[in-house]
């Protein structure tokens, strides 16, 4: 699905990603953890195509194609979805209109006709039920005045509508209350298939209790310094990051 090789990226001249290697197979869930400022969101942004970041080295192949060559919209249309850590508020643009435009763009890209209004509404209702969003929220402007948790839930609602192949969830758990976390995680699990892959960026084991990862990676200072199975997350929860930092230090000095 996705192969990242020696990926380096910088912002405003400052190098943030210092050679990331990561391979994600079809149907897999990968968790990325790591201390604040280690570059997790940067990696997610680079994959989604944010233009503020300069890719200074490496390659990213998505379903056999060069992802870095694609515009952000083409990545989305090809099936890359980023659930933002900080979703923006867009006053005046209704969720419904925006989603209709987005869904139809994806369909156009696949050579499909735009959706009939009725079919679209049916789909909306179905996906709303999945993440337990109410109509009032969907009718409002995109994220405008939404609480932190509502914004995160709206991200997953959008994901459900767009049916991506690769979903990158950047701290989707932060801001969600305990019940909302279950609902959102449930939604994500229901949307999964053997054909889709997920990258879950999180600081806490809690989310991984529901969305159980196949692999866990620790990102530290722009590098993946440790990878393992789901038990690595539990180990991090128990021990913190100091031992990882020491590990990384040893690697650099060695």
């Amino acid at each position, binding site marked *: 699905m996705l192969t990242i090789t020696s990926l380096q990226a910088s912002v405003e001249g400052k190098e943030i990603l210092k050679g990331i290697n990561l391979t994600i197979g079809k149907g897999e869930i990968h968790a990325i953890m790591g201390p604040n400022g280690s570059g997790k969101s940067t990696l997610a942004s680079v994959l989604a*195509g944010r233009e503020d970041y300069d890719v200074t080295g490496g390659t990213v192949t998505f379903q056999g194609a060069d992802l870095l060559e694609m515009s952000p919209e083409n990545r989305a249309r090809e099936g890359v979805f980023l659930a933002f850590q900080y979703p923006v508020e867009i006053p005046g643009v209704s969720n419904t209109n925006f989603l209709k435009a987005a869904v139809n763009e*994806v369909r156009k890209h696949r050579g499909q006709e735009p959706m009939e209004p009725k079919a679209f509404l049916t789909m909306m209702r179905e996906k709303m039920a999945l993440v337990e969003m109410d109509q009032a929220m969907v009718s409002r402007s995109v994220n405008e005045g939404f609480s932190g948790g509502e914004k995160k839930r709206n991200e997953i609602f959008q994901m459900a509508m767009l049916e991506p192949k690769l979903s990158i969830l950047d701290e989707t758990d932060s801001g969600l209350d305990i019940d909302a976390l279950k609902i959102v995680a449930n939604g994500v699990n229901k949307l999964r298939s053997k054909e889709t892959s997920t990258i879950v960026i999180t600081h806490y084991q809690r989310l991984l209790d529901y969305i159980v990862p196949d692999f866990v990676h620790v990102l530290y200072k722009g590098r993946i310094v440790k990878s393992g199975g789901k038990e690595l997350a539990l180990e991090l929860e128990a021990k913190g990051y100091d031992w990882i930092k020491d590990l990384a230090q040893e690697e650099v000095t060695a």
Partner: protein
Amino acid sequence: MSEVLNLQEKLVKEFALVEGALNGQAKTPVHAIRKQAMKRFAELGFPTIRHEEWKYTNIMPVVKNDYVLAPQSSTTLTKADIEPFLMPDVKANVLVFVNGAYAANLSTIISTKNVEILPLVEAFTKKTVIVEQHFAQIAAWQNDAMLALNTAFALNGAYIEIAKGAVVEEPFHLLFVNDSRAQSTFAPARNLIVVGANAEATIVESAHTLATGENVGFTNVVSEVVLADNARLHHYKIQNDVEQSHFIGALYAHQEATSVLNTVVVTLSGGIVRNNLSAVLAGKGADTHFYGLYLVNGKTLVDNHTLADHAVAHCTSNELYKGIMDDRSTGVFNGKIMVRADAQKTLAYQSNRNILMSPHATVNTKPQLEIFADDVKCSHGCTAGQLDDESVFYLRARGLDKEQAQALLLYAFAGEITEKIGLEPLRERLETIIAERLHQELV
């Protein structure tokens, strides 16, 4: 410069001619004012960028042309010619003025009860008392050359009087056609609108130019508006004229206690467009709303000068102007809030927000606050910049291309103004035009 003097001299001469043809009216107080105004215009001359009020708007390209003063002869235009300028699906009183002159054959009057609708020149004789009370009293022309000029030539235009307590459902569409097909034409017009106590009305004003070849139309529409106690007036000015047109116009309102004025000015195209808007809040609890949208491209220049003049206590003014400028277009906004010493407990808000879509587009925005009372709440702010990158990226990350994302954001930005238009079909029409302009299919 000499061409400018030419036009000025030409207008002075024209005035003498028009005056000569006035007969009986020549001795009325209204005429005395017009004569003084002409004298004043001749002294002041057309404003230049050396005048503080015209600093960013050079009208030399407007006044250098060789115009004829609107001929009074009846028009050859037909209803079919003006059809594109009408509001579809609206039952409205349509008053059409061609080169200033009232065209009865093109107009449709449907409201008959509680309203008095007359060409201004007829009102001078039929409505002398009201006219003499208000005409040229609300719009202070003494130190404003353009207004003095308009006052001098004030014959054409509409007189609308809404009776006390009448709520007139059908809007009044004042439609000014500048027919410059044969020759570049200067078409001044003057309206006097009197809304009685507890009455309510909606007025739509639009100007349209027909020009061929090198010809340019220059339209100058000034309205004086009086709102009696608790009166409500909704005034929508729609400017979507051709490139070969210039518009300099104004609305001056006088508001008595608890009256409400809602104005929305939407400018979508034209040559040089200047709108003055001023409301004097003269009665306790009066409320005024100024909304404006300018969405322009090419070389259009649009200049909005506003004044909310709080003369007494407990009044509110609320102002929001938004601009989107592309290509080499220019936006000018000058918003003045005056709070006089007696105007305690004033609430006055003002905001001007601009988006520049091209490196060659410019905007000059200036708030002016003059506050002489101490117990007031005033705020103002202006911004000029590009569309928010974060928002554009967010939309692109969901599959919209850059143009679509921008269009959606701009449409939303403009929507905050168009939604203030209470006349549904007009609002929808404008939103469709805006969506088309932004190359966006949004329904």
